[in-house]
């Protein structure tokens, strides 16, 4: 995709008949997606889509982003084979090490792309929502790098359990505003960010942190994370003598790290598995619904009120899911399972003790599913997207362990 294209035409899709190609012109993946937003935001979404298409087809933009990803964020991230854990489980486990990126998670890939796009659109202020704080930290980081103003909305509950990230964002010069309404977690932070954006859309860009929201976000954010999937495919092929892993596993909150790694393998024979928290299983428990600008699976009651998710992990504590995952589930290209908080804590400790890698609680979900399925996965090669590092979660886990002992 480095060919220059005339700005009036969309760039060619990376894989013409891909399972994860471009959405339809109205922003749909199958029946999911779309643009369910107030009229006041419509011009901004249309402008953003045009700006992204234009930038994505512009080799100068792509080179600038690649440069930032390499020299600032530290890409490519390595692929690590888990020798001891593989021996112990009988499953050959590979990790895509997004935890080693600058700011500690995959979130930086998306944010650097959107920040460059913000500059290109002539805007100077970033608005973001955050759950675990990783997207907020990444956004605050990009804002510091580019000299933008930055406001991050975060649920009050999450501000307590991710106190360190709140301080980190403030250190970086961002303003962190609490979301007091509803469940006071990620869903409510999204509402607040949208309310801010409606009022400031002429000068602000909403730097959405996952593959959710109105078109073009689900598609744009996935494309900005495609780099990690493409790297992982090439890295595993060189490790596995040209073969692909049998199974590719990622945790799913909104679904951005999963979309990134799935996009690298969607058109291979690898099985794709997304892992949701049991208390936030939008695909597992959900029915189609519309919130936050998109149609997707949604945890809701019988009249359509959105339910509050419950998870140990602030980053996955979300009742919805990105529309492309709803589509991949519907057509059966990816499977989605859920794990409970206890399984996650076990996985967190297991990876720490056997490999010397402290994972974030979010990707510990992906590992938890692999550990549970070790018998059925025996002898197979499994690639897990280790989407972030666990430093942010250490204090929370310490509290939980102290309460349990």
């Amino acid at each position, binding site marked *: 995709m480095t060919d220059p294209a005339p700005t009036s035409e969309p760039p060619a899709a990376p894989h013409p008949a891909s399972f994860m190609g471009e959405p339809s012109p*109205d922003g749909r993946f199958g029946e999911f997606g*779309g*643009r*369910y*937003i*107030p*009229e*006041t935001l*419509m*011009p901004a979404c249309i402008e953003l889509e045009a700006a992204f298409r234009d930038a994505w087809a512009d080799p100068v933009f792509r080179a600038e982003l690649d440069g930032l990803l390499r020299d600032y964020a530290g890409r490519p991230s390595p692929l690590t084979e888990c020798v001891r854990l593989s021996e112990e489980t009988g499953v050959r486990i590979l990790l895509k090490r997004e935890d080693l990126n600058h700011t500690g998670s995959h979130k930086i890939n998306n944010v650097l792309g959107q920040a460059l796009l913000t500059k290109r659109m002539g805007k100077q202020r970033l608005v973001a929502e955050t759950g675990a704080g990783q997207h907020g930290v990444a956004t605050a980081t990009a804002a510091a790098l580019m000299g933008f103003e930055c406001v991050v909305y975060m649920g009050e509950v999450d501000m307590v359990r991710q106190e360190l990230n709140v301080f980190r964002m403030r250190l970086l010069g961002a303003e962190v505003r609490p979301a007091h*309404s*509803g469940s006071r977690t990620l*869903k*409510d932070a*999204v*509402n607040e960010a*949208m*309310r801010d954006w*409606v*009022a*400031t*859309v*002429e000068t602000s860009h909403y730097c959405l942190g996952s593959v959710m929201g109105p078109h073009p976000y689900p598609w744009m954010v996935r494309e900005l994370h495609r780099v990690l999937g493409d790297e992982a495919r090439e890295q595993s092929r060189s490790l596995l003598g040209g073969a692909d892993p049998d199974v590719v596993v990622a945790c799913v909150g909104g679904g951005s790290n999963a979309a990134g790694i799935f996009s690298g393998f969607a058109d291979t024979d690898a099985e794709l598995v997304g892992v949701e928290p049991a208390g936030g299983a939008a695909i597992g428990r959900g*029915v*189609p*619904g*519309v*919130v*936050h*600008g998109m*149609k997707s699976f*949604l945890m*809701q009651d*019988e*009249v*359509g*009120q*959105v339910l509050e998710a419950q998870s140990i992990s602030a980053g996955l504590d979300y009742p919805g899911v990105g529309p492309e995952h709803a589509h991949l589930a519907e057509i059966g290209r990816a499977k989605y399972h859920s794990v409970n908080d206890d399984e996650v804590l076990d996985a967190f400790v297991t990876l720490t003790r056997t490999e010397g890698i402290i994972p974030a609680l979010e990707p510990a979900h992906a590992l938890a599913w692999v550990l549970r399925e070790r018998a059925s996965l025996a002898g197979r090669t499994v690639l897990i997207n280790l989407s972030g590092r666990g430093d942010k979660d250490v204090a929370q886990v310490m509290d939980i362990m102290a309460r349990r002992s």
Partner: protein
Amino acid sequence: MTEPGPLEAHLRAQRAAGRKLLVPYVTGGLGAWTDVVRALADAGADAIEIGLPFSDPAMDGPVIQAASEQALAEGATPASILDGLRDIDAGVPLVVMTYYNLVFRAGHERFAADLVAAGVSGIILPDLPLEEQPPWQAAAVPAGIETILLAGPITPDDRLKALCAASRGFVYGVNLMGITGERAVVGEQSAVLARRLKDATDTPVLMGFGVSGPDQARQLAANADGVIVASALMRRLLAGAPVDEIHAFTTSLRAALDGS
């Protein structure tokens, strides 16, 4: 041109009689809300907007968020509110305002039928823009439900024309870039939008968002056909104002509009 439905016909007739239109809002299911609906009608409302509270009202400011949360905590559901409207006999057209998921979850046809059964004429769905309207319209139009579309200060001309052409009942002009809630000052952009809408359509044009009191209502109505008042009323209700006080405030809005 299709024949105007009952809501639009009523508003057109009121306008033709030389009257500026007043459409107040109340959150359904909140306390003595049915008494409030009757009081609003009695105090001179030309139509009444009833909110069906949603868990995630992303277009609403703190007042309507709080009203929605409280109504939901009191057990309000779309069915309980529509039941309450069934025998209200307000004497003016009723319009429901809600978020699309409540419609989508019920199913378009069932929801439209429920509105008709409750005597509701129109609906406002702020998160269902023009492009996403067709599946809902396919059920609403045959049922005779008038769907009101919104236009904002930065809506470009071509979109504005398309919105006006598709809107039934009235066209909702959003006074400002932002969420619902009273503003001390509503800027010039409201007047500019009102004039653009009036140039684009003969359908009644009502301006809403930010309206805090009688003087402002008169100013905002000057370039349009009328105003929608929500947070100013709901703030009073949430603070415990009795129905009499809501009646008196609505009467003052009516008087200001009649004086203009």
